[in-house]
């Protein structure tokens, strides 16, 4: 065992990278659920985002366009969910699962000619002086831009939900859509916007995996991150900063346990392998002792005639 082989600076830097796809997807889903919609299609939207982002950035040579395409791809797929649940009034759970199955298959089809290609690199932000500060520089100021987008998005979602009129309306729709409707808010329209936002975030999260974290395209490469994001939203009690904490914990412990293994720490590998799940759940459950509960109208179908 030699803990000295673990470089804490690199560790923190790479845990942020590991956490970002999860964070992006979870923040998107959080907004969707705050609006009273349960979209289980996160995994599907992520993988479609992963391939749309990958394909566009390979074709255009621009990772930025790739991320925009990924957001659009995820949002377009979520349109299918909009059609099913907001217009056809289908069951949200069923539609979400359908979205995931469809997304996995569809992305495999789209991605056939992109296997084994290297995407253009986004590069890292390098601010003179600040990025070169020892320890803090590599941890905070030497990442790809999307990682900061994830954090900024968390802050933005938190601020909007908490302090703005739009946030209040969104929460009203999610808590009691009949009351919101009676007040004259367009419940369906607001929910559609939320679902599209969720799709775009999930798509970007997927593209983060295919463009930055791995970087390559492989069928089924999200491998369940979408489901973890869904669970994270619940354990984070629908609070953005807790989602961030949860994502960083999960990503962090995933990377840490691999580091501990490589350094030969004498903890049985089985415990290390399950630790990200257990510790994340534990911390978030303890935090959620304040009894914050799910949006009251979560996964209930709204129809103006009610």
């Amino acid at each position: 065992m030699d803990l000295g082989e673990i470089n804490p600076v690199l560790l923190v830097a790479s845990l942020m990278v590991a956490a970002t796809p999860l964070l992006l997807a979870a923040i998107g889903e959080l907004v969707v659920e705050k609006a009273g919609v349960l979209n289980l299609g996160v995994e599907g939207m992520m993988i479609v985002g992963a391939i749309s982002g990958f394909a566009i950035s390979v074709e255009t040579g621009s990772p930025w366009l790739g991320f925009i395409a990924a957001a659009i791809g995820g949002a377009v797929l979520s349109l299918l969910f909009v059609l099913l649940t907001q217009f056809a009034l289908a069951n949200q759970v069923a539609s979400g699962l359908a979205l995931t199955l469809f997304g996995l298959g569809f992305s495999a089809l789209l991605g056939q000619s992109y296997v084994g290609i290297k995407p253009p690199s986004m590069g890292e932000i390098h601010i003179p002086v600040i990025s070169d500060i020892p320890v803090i520089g590599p941890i905070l100021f030497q990442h790809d831009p999307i990682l900061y987008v994830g954090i900024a998005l968390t802050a933005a979602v938190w601020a909007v939900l908490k302090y703005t009129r739009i946030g209040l309306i969104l929460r009203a729709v999610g808590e009691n859509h009949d009351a919101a409707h009676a007040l004259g808010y367009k419940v369906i329209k607001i929910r559609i916007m939320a679902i599209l936002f969720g799709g775009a975030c999930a798509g970007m999260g997927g593209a983060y995996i295919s463009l930055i974290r791995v970087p390559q395209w492989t069928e089924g490469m999200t491998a369940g991150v979408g489901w973890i994001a869904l669970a994270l939203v619940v354990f984070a009690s629908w609070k953005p900063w807790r989602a961030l904490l949860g994502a960083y914990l999960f990503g962090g412990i995933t990377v840490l346990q691999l580091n501990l293994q490589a350094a030969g720490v004498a903890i049985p590998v089985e415990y290390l392998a399950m630790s990200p799940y257990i510790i994340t759940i534990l911390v978030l459950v303890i935090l959620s002792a304040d009894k914050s509960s799910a949006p009251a109208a979560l996964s209930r179908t709204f129809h103006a005639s009610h």
Partner: protein
Amino acid sequence: MNAKTLIGIAAVIILGVVGYVWFGQSGQQQALDDGTTKVGFVYVGPVGDGGWTYEHDKGRQAVEKEFGDKVETVFVESVPEGPDSERVMTQMALEGADLIFTTSFGYMDPTINVAKEFPNVKFEHATGYKTADNVSVYSARFYEGRAVQGHIAGNMTKSNIIGYIGSYPIPEVIRGINSAYIHAKKVNPDVEFKIVWAYTWFDPAKEADAATVLIEQGADVILQHTDSTAPQAAAQEAGNVVTFGQASDMSEYAPFPRVSSIIDDWAPYYIARTQAVMDGTWESANTWDGIREGMVAIGEISDAVPADVKEEALALKAAMAAGEYHPFTGPLKKQDGSDWLGDGDVADDGTLAGMNFYVEGLEGEIPQ
């Protein structure tokens, strides 16, 4: 959530899964008993993983090409190991499959269970060790390929740290680690292996993370026993790190970081076994073929490898193909220092098949 909703959700999930399996098999004509032989394949990853499952699916396509209209193949991909796979196999058997290949270690008990229910269907389980009257096992001597990898890896490393991404601590993977280590150590006595268990066969993000962690801890050669090409991408990103293709050639990462590969060639075996079912000569067997039979191939060694090392590696391969050299030849000791093989002795297949110990020099414990 009330009971009604729960039942609704359960029903939807079941429908979804059944539908998924159904679509996995669509595009194939429903089997009528018109003399065609129906062959099923159960895959652990997607056919596009670029590694393990990709090669099995190439084998399936070779069967289709060989027999044309006389055969019909079906496959289901990304089937989790464990109870869920029983359902998939049962479904295949019910739909009239005559022969079913289950292509991952974790399908071992499910295969045996389902085979009991369908005595007339032949099953072939890859990399396992449990057989029955209608269950064969087959595997490739990947450890022969690992010997070649170890030889090259030991020569190529400058930091003397070789990172190894293990999937699950099963004999097949442990054999690979031991074989690679023995041959790396032979050419480079200072070499050290860092082993990380990913506990997955296929999860590109996690495999890439594992590779990155190993590189950060000083490894400049990465060997992988997981199925995707993600570690190759991670190594390429890091620069100056050597990798090897696993299960498939992964030539899209050649000539560097991928300097060589172990390729599994299942096609001849799949064709022979399908033929045996057609002829009615199929019998339960335990096949374990290596470089000599062509089930294990060594992908082209790229020019990134010095010419003399390449030559030695090819000579090693030739010696194994000729049956002159066995990768586990004594004197060898176990990790705890106890004697395993005397001078000149070679390991017997029984020990290899159940290998659950590291050889001397490797650090860390095998998770049990």
